[in-house]
């Protein structure tokens, strides 16, 4: 009897329908695109930056022979190779992509003796990002607290979409606004020596990260189970005491995630910084001087480099660096924080 039952079940499930089979597998195959995209991005950004990781080959071989050797598997056409030969012919001995070259203190990619020190760019990125967080995060988190914990339901339904509309502002428009209005305003108020500087760029970038920090923080605050605040209110705590001492601490990992995501977004942001920071690669910690960030360097210089030469390689290396850094930051925000949040809410 039992055998029979199992048989009939099997025969049902084994009934093969071509359309079903095709549908499921095509859908599965297409959904693999996102994963493939990540792999491809990783592979191709690193591929163009490869000479940095294998400087020996490039140094050891004579220019013409080595070019065809290194790029032998490259299906790129002959014009590219001839460009590379041109580039290698015109570049001096020091124009080699290597880690020693990247750790110099200066970024001076054009000239007799090009220097590819990433330090000033890195400092520039950090300065602008930290400033953006300092300006944007308090505003965004406070706004999230208000709309999640204090605002009436109707008011919340206006505030939330309004702030999220800020996310639809293209970064080039924010950069333009910073360049035209914010920079002029700050210069007339604070009397900056340089009209465009890290401070201006940071303030402008705050607009770009406010929506993301706000949204994630708001979600974290509203995700705190109702019984947390109900218990607190029942014990006689006031609304704001509950908000500050019960809901906020419970949502800390979420707020931390919001900050990380904001940091990642700001670190990779290009157009705002390209337009509003003055783009001078200086290694100082003065926030009122112009800075050049990693991302803006790619945006500003990639159009002018010769394909395949050292400068080109270094720019791709910077891209790879940005990819890895934002990847790590997002991964931390995603896994560590989410796991912690879940644990806390389950009361473990």
């Amino acid at each position, binding site marked *: 009897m039992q055998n029979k039952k199992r048989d009939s079940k099997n025969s049902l499930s084994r009934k093969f329908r071509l359309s079903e089979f095709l549908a*499921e597998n095509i859908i599965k195959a297409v*959904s693999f695109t996102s994963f493939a995209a990540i792999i491809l991005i990783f592979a191709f950004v690193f591929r163009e930056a490869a000479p940095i990781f294998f400087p020996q080959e490039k140094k050891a071989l004579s220019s013409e022979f080595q070019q065809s050797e290194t790029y032998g598997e490259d299906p790129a056409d002959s014009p590219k190779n001839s460009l590379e030969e041109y580039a290698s012919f015109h570049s001096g001995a020091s124009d080699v992509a290597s880690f020693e070259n990247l750790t110099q203190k200066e970024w001076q990619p054009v000239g007799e003796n090009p220097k590819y020190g990433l330090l000033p760019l890195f400092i520039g990125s950090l300065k602008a990002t930290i400033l953006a967080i300092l300006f944007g995060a308090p505003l965004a988190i406070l706004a999230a607290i208000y709309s999640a914990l204090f605002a009436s339901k109707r008011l919340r339904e206006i505030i939330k979409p309004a702030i999220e509309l800020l996310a639809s502002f293209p970064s080039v428009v924010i950069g333009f606004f910073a360049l035209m209005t914010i920079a002029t305003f700050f210069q007339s108020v604070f009397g900056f020596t340089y009209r465009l500087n890290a401070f201006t760029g940071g303030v402008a970038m705050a607009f770009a990260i406010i929506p993301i920090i706000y949204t994630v923080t708001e979600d974290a605050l509203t995700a705190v189970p109702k019984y947390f605040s109900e218990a607190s209110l029942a014990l006689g705590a006031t609304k704001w005491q509950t908000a500050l001492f019960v809901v906020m601490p419970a949502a800390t990992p979420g707020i931390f995630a919001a900050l990380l995501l904001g940091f990642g977004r700001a670190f*990779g942001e290009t157009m705002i910084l390209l337009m509003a920071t003055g783009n001078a690669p200086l290694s100082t910690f003065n926030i009122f001087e112009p800075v050049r960030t990693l991302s803006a360097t790619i945006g500003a210089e990639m159009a002018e480099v010769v394909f395949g030469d050292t400068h080109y390689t270094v720019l791709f290396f910077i891209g790879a660096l940005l990819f890895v850094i934002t990847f790590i930051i997002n991964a931390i925000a995603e896994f560590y924080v989410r796991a912690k949040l879940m644990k806390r809410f389950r009361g473990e």
Partner: protein
Amino acid sequence: MMNNKLLGRSIVIVSALAVLIIISALVYILLDIYIGGKNYLTWGFLTSNPKEGMTAGGIFPAIVGTVLLVLIMSVACVPIGTITAIYLNEYASKTSVFTKMIRFAVNTLSGVPAIVFGLFGLGFFIQFIGAGVDKAIYSDGQLHWGQPNLLWASLTMAFLTIPVVIVSVEEALRTVPDDLRAGALALGATKWQTIRKIVIPNSLSGILTGTILAIGRGAGEVAPILFTGVAYFLPHLPQKLTDQFMNLGYHIYVMATQSTDVEATKGIQYATAFILLILTFSLSFVAMIIRYRFRKKIKA
């Protein structure tokens, strides 16, 4: 006790103030850009070509370029995003490694900086695929596909906007009640029939929202197309996929930072920025309204 009350009130006031600052900044940016460009905002500005070395005339080619870009992008990213969302929500088992891989990839993809997509487009589409096609098909040694063009820029942008579509379609799929699926299955429909006839029609609004949001994103981003196909000025509109194109965002960037006479074109810059802002703003506004109505319908 008094102190407590004061503290409580000040927290509420400070946080409300933060909301006020953000929203007034938003309104201020809109107004500032509108006022800066309002003298140029005419119908003729939208429909005419730039004249006299970009210091006069309109932005018609930049609008056409942007529209073409987002159209080709949507053709690529909307089906892929929708199908991925369907897989994740309808077929995938939550615990399988494959599902986790895809979820992880979607999350990662949405965090990759826009400029890195640009590098990827250059390295993959132009240097690898484009140059490969040139080598395989053409023997004249000329560049056909192995240089920046409309197609490569659109596809690069599609990679950037796939997560946008996935997130919003998935949200819609999740709101389709399981009762509907169970009902269809109980009546003898297969899984694919259920998805095609019940699930997808019920989540069309999500697909629409995703498309609109993706278009808004694609229209506004500049970094990914910087070196994959955009041009500062072109005498002709793009005729084929291998042509370069003009773009609203890039137009603003170049005019504001690299133009020889920034002052003379200030009005044009503001007006262009306003057009772009209104475009992305209204797209996300429409998406928001569709979503809001949809949620209301679900609740009712």
